[in-house]
C-alpha cells in the first residue's frame, strides 16, 4: 500500500508574513478611512472659527453659542422633534395593527395585503412624497375629486401632521416586520394557554399577544424615531414651502443652497445631529440586547394558530384594503399615471391626455438620461464593489484571528449612526480638503464611495447571519489540510456565502438606486443620479418629468425585487 509506505509531505512552508496580514490590515484601514474620513472634517469644522480650507483658523466653541443664538433655531429643533415623534406614533400604530391583522388573524388575502403593505420599504421617501403630492396635494387627484363633490378638502400635506402621516405610513413596514418576527418566535402555547383558560379573541390579543410584542414595538419605535430625525425629502417638499424647517432642511438650505455657506454653523448643526443619532443607535443596541433576553424563550420558530375574526373578517378586510389603496396603490399608481399623461385631473377624460412625451423628453435631455445611466452605473458597479468589501469585512470579523476584528466590526456598523445628510456634508468637506482628490469630486465615484460607506451596515446585516450558520469545522478542515486563511476564505467560505452575497448585492443595488440625501451634497454637473435629478426637476416645477423619472426608479426596483425573490428566494428584510 503506497499510502502507508510513503512518508509525510509537508505543506509549503508559511511565509514570514502570512498573506492574511496585508489583506486584513488593508481592509481595516480602508474601512477606517471610509468611516472616519467624512466625520472628522465635520467635527473639526464645528470647532473652527474659519472655514476648513482657509489658510488660518483658530479652535473655538463660538459656533455652538452662535448656533444657539441663531434666530429660529429653537423652533427648528422643536419641529424636528415633533415631526420625528409624530412619525413614530403613526408608524408604530399602523405597523403594529398590520402585524396583528395580517400576521396573526384569518383575515382574507392577508399575504397579498402584507406584500402591498411592505412596498414603501423598497421605495425612496422622495418618490413616495411625489406620489402623495400627486394624489393629496393641492392639485392632487383625490383633492380635486373631493372638492368637486364635497367642497374644500379637509387635509393638507403642508403641515407637521401631514408630513408625519406620509413619513409614518412609509415607515410602518419597519414596525410591522419587527412585531411579526417577534410574534413568530414567541411560544404559541402562551396564547393557547390563555384561550384554553377561557379568554376570548380580543382579550387574548390585548392581554397576551400585544404585551409579548412590546420589546419589538419599543425597539422599532426608536428605529423609526431615528429615521424620522433624518428625514430630508418630505420636509424639503412639503415643509419648506410652508415655512416649516427641520434640522435636515436647515443643513440643506444653509450648506448647499446658500450662495455663501456658513461652514461653522452647518458643521456644528451636523455634529449636533450626529451626537443625537449616535445616542439613539446606542439605545437601539441596548434595547436589542434586552429584547433578546425576552424573546428567545420560545426558541423554535412555530406558526401560532391565527385568531378568528368571525363576523369582523370582511369589514376589517375592506378597511385594510382601503388603507392599502389610499396609502400605497393610489400614490404609486397616480404617480405612474401622471408619468404617462400631459395633465392629470379627474375633470379631464384620461384618453385625451395619455402621452409618452414625458419619457421622450427625459431621454432627449442629456442631463436626465445621464442621471438614469449614472444611477445604473453607481448601483451596479458600486453595489458590486461594496459587496466585495462587505464580504471581506464579514469574513475578517467573523472568521479570522485578526487582532482588531472586534474594533473593525464596531467600525463597520458605525455608519448606522451617521445620517445621510451628515455623511453628505462630511464627504463634501473631505474631498474639498484633500489635495489630489479633485478628479473624484466631479465624478460618480465620489457617490460610490459615499454610498458604500452609508450602506456597509445594511450589507453586513445581510451577510453575517449566513456566515454565522456555516460550521466552523468547514474552514478549520481546510486550515488543517494546509490552506492558509486567504485560500480558505476564497475556496471555502466565499462559495458557501454566495446566496447571502446575492442578497447583499440586491439590497445595495436598491439602496444605491434610490439614495438621494447623501448625493445632493456631492453631485456635480455630469454626475447626477435619479435622486438628484428628481429634486432639480421638482424645483423647476416639471411635475410630468418628475413622475416619469420616478416611474423609472419604481419600475427598476420592482423588477429587481421580484427577480431576486423569485429566482433566488432571498429575503430582503427581517
Amino acid at each position, binding site marked *: 500500500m503506497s*499510502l502507508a509506505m510513503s512518508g509525510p509531505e509537508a505543506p*509549503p512552508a508559511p511565509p514570514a508574513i502570512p498573506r492574511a496580514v496585508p489583506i486584513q490590515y488593508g481592509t481595516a484601514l480602508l474601512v477606517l478611512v471610509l468611516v472616519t474620513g467624512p466625520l472628522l472634517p465635520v467635527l473639526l469644522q464645528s470647532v473652527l472659527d474659519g472655514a476648513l480650507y482657509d489658510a488660518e483658523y483658530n479652535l473655538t466653541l463660538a459656533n455652538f453659542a452662535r448656533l444657539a443664538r441663531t434666530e429660529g433655531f429653537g423652533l427648528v429643533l422643536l419641529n424636528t422633534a415633533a415631526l420625528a415623534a409624530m412619525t413614530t406614533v403613526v408608524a408604530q400604530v399602523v405597523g403594529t395593527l398590520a402585524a396583528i391583522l395580517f400576521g396573526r388573524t384569518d383575515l382574507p388575502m392577508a399575504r397579498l395585503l402584507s406584500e402591498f403593505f411592505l412596498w414603501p420599504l423598497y421605495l425612496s421617501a422622495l418618490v413616495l412624497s411625489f406620489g402623495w403630492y400627486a394624489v393629496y396635494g393641492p392639485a392632487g387627484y383625490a383633492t380635486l375629486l373631493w372638492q368637486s363633490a364635497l367642497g374644500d378638502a379637509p387635509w393638507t400635506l403642508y403641515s407637521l401632521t401631514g408630513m408625519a402621516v406620509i413619513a409614518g405610513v412609509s415607515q410602518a413596514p419597519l414596525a410591522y416586520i419587527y412585531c411579526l418576527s417577534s410574534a413568530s418566535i414567541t411560544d404559541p402555547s402562551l396564547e393557547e394557554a390563555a384561550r384554553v383558560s377561557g379568554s376570548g379573541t380580543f382579550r387574548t390579543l390585548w392581554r397576551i399577544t400585544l404585551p409579548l410584542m412590546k420589546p419589538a414595538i419599543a425597539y422599532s419605535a426608536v428605529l423609526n424615531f431615528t429615521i424620522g430625525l433624518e428625514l430630508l425629502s418630505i420636509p424639503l417638499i412639503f415643509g419648506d414651502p410652508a415655512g416649516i424647517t427641520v434640522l435636515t432642511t436647515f443643513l440643506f438650505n444653509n450648506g448647499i443652497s446658500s450662495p455663501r455657506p456658513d461652514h461653522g454653523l452647518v458643521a456644528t448643526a451636523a455634529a449636533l445631529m450626529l451626537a443625537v443619532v449616535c445616542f439613539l443607535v446606542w439605545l437601539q443596541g441596548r434595547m436589542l440586547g434586552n429584547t433578546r433576553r425576552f424573546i428567545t424563550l420560545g426558541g423554535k420558530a412555530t406558526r401560532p394558530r391565527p385568531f378568528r375574526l368571525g363576523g369582523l373578517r370582511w369589514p376589517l378586510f375592506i378597511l385594510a384594503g382601503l388603507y392599502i389603496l389610499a396609502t400605497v396603490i393610489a400614490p404609486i399608481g397616480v404617480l405612474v399615471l401622471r408619468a404617462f399623461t400631459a395633465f392629470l385631473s379627474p375633470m379631464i377624460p384620461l384618453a385625451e391626455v395619455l402621452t409618452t412625451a414625458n419619457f421622450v423628453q427625459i431621454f432627449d435631455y442629456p442631463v436626465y438620461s445621464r442621471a438614469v445611466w449614472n444611477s445604473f452605473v453607481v448601483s451596479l458597479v458600486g453595489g458590486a464593489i461594496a459587496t466585495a468589501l462587505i464580504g471581506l469585512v464579514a469574513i475578517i470579523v467573523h472568521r479570522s484571528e485578526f487582532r482588531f476584528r472586534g474594533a473593525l466590526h464596531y467600525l463597520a456598523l458605525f455608519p448606522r449612526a451617521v445620517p445621510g445628510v451628515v455623511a453628505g456634508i462630511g464627504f463634501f468637506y473631505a474631498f474639498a480638503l484633500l489635495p489630489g482628490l479633485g478628479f473624484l469630486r466631479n465624478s460618480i465615484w465620489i457617490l460610490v464611495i459615499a454610498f458604500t460607506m452609508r450602506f456597509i451596515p445594511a450589507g453586513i446585516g445581510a451577510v453575517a447571519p449566513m456566515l454565522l450558520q456555516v460550521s466552523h*469545522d468547514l474552514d478549520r478542515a481546510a486550515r488543517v489540510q494546509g490552506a492558509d486563511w486567504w485560500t480558505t476564505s476564497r475556496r471555502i467560505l466565499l462559495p458557501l456565502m454566495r446566496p447571502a452575497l446575492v442578497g447583499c448585492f440586491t439590497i445595495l443595488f436598491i439602496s444605491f438606486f434610490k439614495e438621494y440625501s447623501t448625493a445632493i451634497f456631492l453631485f456635480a454637473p455630469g454626475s447626477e443620479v435619479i435622486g438628484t435629478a428628481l429634486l432639480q426637476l421638482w424645483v423647476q416645477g416639471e411635475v410630468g418629468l418628475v413622475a416619469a423619472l420616478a416611474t423609472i426608479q419604481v419600475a427598476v426596483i420592482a423588477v429587481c425585487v421580484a427577480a431576486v425573490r423569485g429566482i433566488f428566494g432571498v429575503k430582503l428584510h427581517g
Partner: protein
Amino acid sequence: MADLTIQGLTKRFGGVTAVEDVNLHVADGEFVTLLGPSGCGKSTTLAAVAGLDRADGGRIQVGDRVYFDAARGIYLPPEARSCGLVFQSYALWPHMTVADNVAFPLTLRKVSSAERKRRIEEVLALVEMERYAGRYPHELSGGQQQRVALARTLVYRPAILLLDEPLSNLDAKLRDRARAWLAELRTRLGLTTIYVTHDQIEALSLSDRIVVMNGGHIAQIGAPQEIYEHPADPFVADFIGTTNFLPARVLGEASAGGRALLELADGQRLEAVAERPAAAGSRVTLAFRPEQMHVAPPGARMEGGSVLATRVTSRSYVGGQWQVGLDLAGAALRLEARQPPTEDRLDLWLPHVGGILFRGGADVAA
C-alpha cells in the same frame, strides 16, 4: 510518520482551565485514544495539536518539528503542521463533490494533475468509495461521509492522524461496522494516531494505549486491558465499564498484595486483596464489575469469596438476561443474572481477588 510529544500542555478559556499540565508521548505508528466525559479536555488537547487553538503553556512536537512551544514563542499555524484531522461533523465542503473534496489538499500541495487523479482513485478505493467520486456530500449517508472525510485526510499523507469522535454521529449498527473497518484500516496504514472519544468500547477495541482524562488532567495512561482491570482511581473504574462501589472500613491492616478484612456499614464482613497497603480503621471503597458478582446458591460455601446478604430493589429484563438492582448496606449495586430473583432477599457471592480497593469513603465514587 512521526512520534508526538506533548509536554506541560495548558489551555485556559477565560477563567476556566480546560487542560492543565498534560504530558504524553505517542510513539511512531502508535494508536492512542483520549477517553473521557465531555468537558474533560480531550478535544481541547486535540485542537491544540492540530493548531486550531493556541495553547497557553507547554510544548508540542511531532517528529523533529516543534508545533508549539510557549516558552520560545513558537506557534505554527494549522496549515503549516501537516496534521490530518477528521472532524466529528466530517466537515465535508457541501459545494464540492467527493472528488473535489479529496483533491483540495493535493491542489494546495501543487501535486500534478495526473498524480492527483491517481491518488484520489487510490484513496477512494482504500475507503471503498470509488463509485461515489462525482457525488455531493449531501447525497451520501453518514457512514459514507465519514469515509470520505477520512480519505480527504489520508490522501496527503499527514504526519499524524487526529480523529475527533468520528463514529459518534453514526447510528448504533453502523457504528459497529465502522469501528471494525477502522480497526482493520489502522493495522494496514500504521499511522501515528490520536483518537478522541467518550465511548469506552471504541477506546478498548481500537487503541494500543488509552489516556483517560478527567477535569483537564490525565487520570491514567495504559493499555486497554490494564485500564480495565487495574483502574488507577474510582473515576477511571467507573468510566470504563459498569462498576459497583461498596464503601467499607478496614478492620485488619493489609500490606500491598495482602488480603484485607473489611466491614460494611451494616456490620457484614468480607475479604479483598489490596493492591496498595490499607491502614486499619481507614475508610475504603471496594470496586468490582457486574460480571464478577454472582448469586450464591442457598447454603453455598464461602470458598474463594464472601457471601453477603442483600435486598432486591429492582429487576428488569434486558434481553437474554436480567438486570437486578441490589441494596447492600446502603450501597446500590447492579447485578447481571440469568434468572430473575424470586424473593426480596438475595445472597451475593463476591470473589476475594479481582475487586479493587481505593482509599476514601463513599464520596470517592460519586
